[in-house]
């Protein structure tokens, strides 16, 4: 479970978040809805540690994420998946290299194993896509 406790964040004199508290339970889908500029992205970035809140803290399954060292945060971040507004694919890399990137960074697999894994993933994707097209 992810819990936000009294999160506040200001940029200059502009208060974006004021004592926001929430809990996101495992297995549930949650929505954060608001007008443009209301602080949805800032809240999300505070939750994953890309922006440090001025006040308050975030807990992941009871672990205080806000006060953790960078090393400890790294372990939790590898449990997080986040899709950015602009997709955040690496422009300098091909699609294949984008997919391979986390495997190369974290899996400890050899280049050959990564290539096999990539091929397997692509085959799965193709079969899912063809099924989807058939249903359409």
């Amino acid at each position, binding site marked *: 479970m992810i819990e936000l406790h009294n999160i506040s964040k200001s940029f200059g004199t502009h208060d974006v978040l004021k004592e926001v508290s929430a809990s996101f339970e495992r297995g549930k889908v949650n929505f954060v809805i608001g007008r443009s500029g209301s602080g949805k992205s800032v809240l999300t*970035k505070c939750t*994953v*540690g*890309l922006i440090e809140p001025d006040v308050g803290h975030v807990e992941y399954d009871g672990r205080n994420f806000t006060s953790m060292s*960078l090393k400890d*945060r*790294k*372990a939790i*971040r*590898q449990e*997080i998946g*986040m899709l*950015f*507004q*602009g997709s*955040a*694919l*690496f*422009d*300098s890399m091909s699609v294949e290299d984008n997919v391979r990137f*986390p495997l*190369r*960074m*974290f899996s400890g697999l050899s280049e050959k194993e990564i290539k096999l894994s990539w091929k397997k993933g692509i085959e799965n994707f193709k079969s899912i896509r063809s099924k989807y097209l058939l249903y359409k």
Partner: protein
Amino acid sequence: MFRELFVQELESIGIQSVGIVSLLSLFMGAVICLQTAHQIGGWIPAYTIGFTVRQTMILEFSPTLIPVILAGKVGSNIASQLGSMRVTEEIDALEIMGVNSASHLILPKILAGVLIVPFLVILSMVLGVGAGAWIAVATGVSTLADFEYGMQVDFRVFDVSYALIKTVIFGFILTSVSAYHGYYASGGPIEVGRSSTRAVVWSVVIIMVSNLIITQMLLN
């Protein structure tokens, strides 16, 4: 992964700069030769031309002006690349994955800069002095024998060491200052352009100030 990025940066900073470095060095060596010949005006020994070309290229032109030129070419490239990655949230994506983005993106650039810039500077020295010799003979301002004698007279190996020490430091400055400005860019495409300009300006300023300090420390 690091080795692959490092090799890419060597290619981007080093190999892709060979053309501009060669062009500038050839013309500067030739121009220094002609200007020196014009100044000495026949009453100072002709070997002075070779001596002056060698000293100018080794002490100042190659080790200082080549990094300044690279600050414009490579520095703006580094700043705009990292700035674009910042505003399109690619750096945030790396952080979310648990990757140390600064180490992953900046370290290969700095190491490549420190390693490859001295080689570009050595190339510049050789081409500049060579071009000076060629133009001296081609225009008849000096014989090849006089030029060669001037190139060798009062040669101190420490001058080359001094030049290379400067170069390593300038290689570090131009890559790290540019990377800093790109990495901490914020906003949109306009800000990326501004960070690129700031990177070039600050790199040049810091290179010039360091040049003065290093010269004072090593030569006096």
